[in-house]
């Protein structure tokens, strides 16, 4: 099979233009953006039931005139890092398999490493905010809990993937996703993490990942890659 990339002429402009087109073609061949988005959407939706665990980790402390308590379901502290590490392992395996099949190397390593580090760091950080007195002043409603969430860690890792894949569309999606995470988490924390608060914090970002994954799947179908 010949993909038909024009690579002819010794004119410097033609040579440079052909080199740029070859670069774009290799990047299109390397991408499988839809796969991590769909896997992470599934991981996000699957986290919803774990919130209903009856047990809570955390403690209470006096901050000035108020008494502040922190609480977090331990099941989520086990679920998120485990599910994310497994998800990134599956994503890495998929990219390597695709790399073997298509005959080009993969740029997924920085994404997988960043994703795993962020997932583990988020777990350590959450434990710190649950028990350390210094964190109690930050634990109320606002931006801090939003930045301190696993969906936010997923978004940061997607920014790394967009850099690795040189994928501007994915960068736009990742930044939009991070904005959605911040808005939904802030609204959720104002409503006190009860009732619909937590599911909404996961359903909306998970839906963004799902729709993004479907969009990239349609755009990156083999028949369209050469287009």
């Amino acid at each position, binding site marked *: 099979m010949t993909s*038909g*990339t024009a690579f002819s*002429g010794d004119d*410097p402009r033609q040579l*440079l233009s052909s080199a740029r087109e*070859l*670069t774009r073609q290799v*990047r299109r061949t390397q991408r499988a953006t839809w796969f991590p988005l769909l896997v992470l959407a599934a991981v996000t939706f699957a986290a919803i039931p774990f919130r209903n665990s009856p047990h809570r980790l955390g403690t209470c402390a006096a901050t000035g005139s108020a008494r502040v308590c922190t609480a977090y379901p331990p099941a989520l502290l086990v679920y998120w890092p485990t599910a994310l590490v497994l998800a990134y392992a599956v994503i890495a395996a998929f990219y390597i398999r695709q790399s073997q099949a298509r*005959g*080009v190397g993969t740029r997924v390593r920085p994404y997988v490493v960043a994703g795993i580090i962020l997932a583990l760091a988020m777990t350590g950080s959450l434990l710190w905010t649950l028990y350390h007195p210094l964190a109690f002043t930050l634990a109320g409603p606002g931006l801090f809990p939003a930045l301190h969430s696993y969906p936010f860690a997923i978004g940061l890792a997607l920014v790394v993937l967009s850099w690795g894949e040189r994928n501007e569309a994915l960068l736009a999606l990742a930044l939009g996703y991070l904005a959605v995470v911040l808005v939904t988490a802030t609204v959720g924390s104002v409503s006190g993490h009860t009732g619909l608060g937590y599911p909404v914090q996961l359903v909306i970002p998970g839906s963004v990942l799902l729709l993004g994954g479907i969009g990239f799947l349609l755009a990156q179908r083999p028949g369209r890659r050469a287009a």
Partner: protein
Amino acid sequence: MTSHPANGLDDIVHQRVRLGILTIAHEARRVEFSYLRDTLGLTAGNLSQHLGVLETAGLVAIEKGYAGKRARTWVSLTKAGQTALEDEIAQLKLLINRIEPTPSL
């Protein structure tokens, strides 16, 4: 007097197929022989000749192996190849700047 940019071109790299091989290997990090052959529209024999020139010059590394029962040949850029590619692109841009007409004020 500054030398003409054409004098800085490396004859090994300044050849459209070999520049294509280096460009693909740079972007892909590691590329399979058949991908190069199909993308550049070459015969296997022609591609092997060009790869031989680049390998002898130390610009690419060639690694043979198996994926299951299928023999595969992987090509990757060496550090010298990376430098040669960057130099070639820089020289091409300089040449283009030389031959582009300067807009009159």
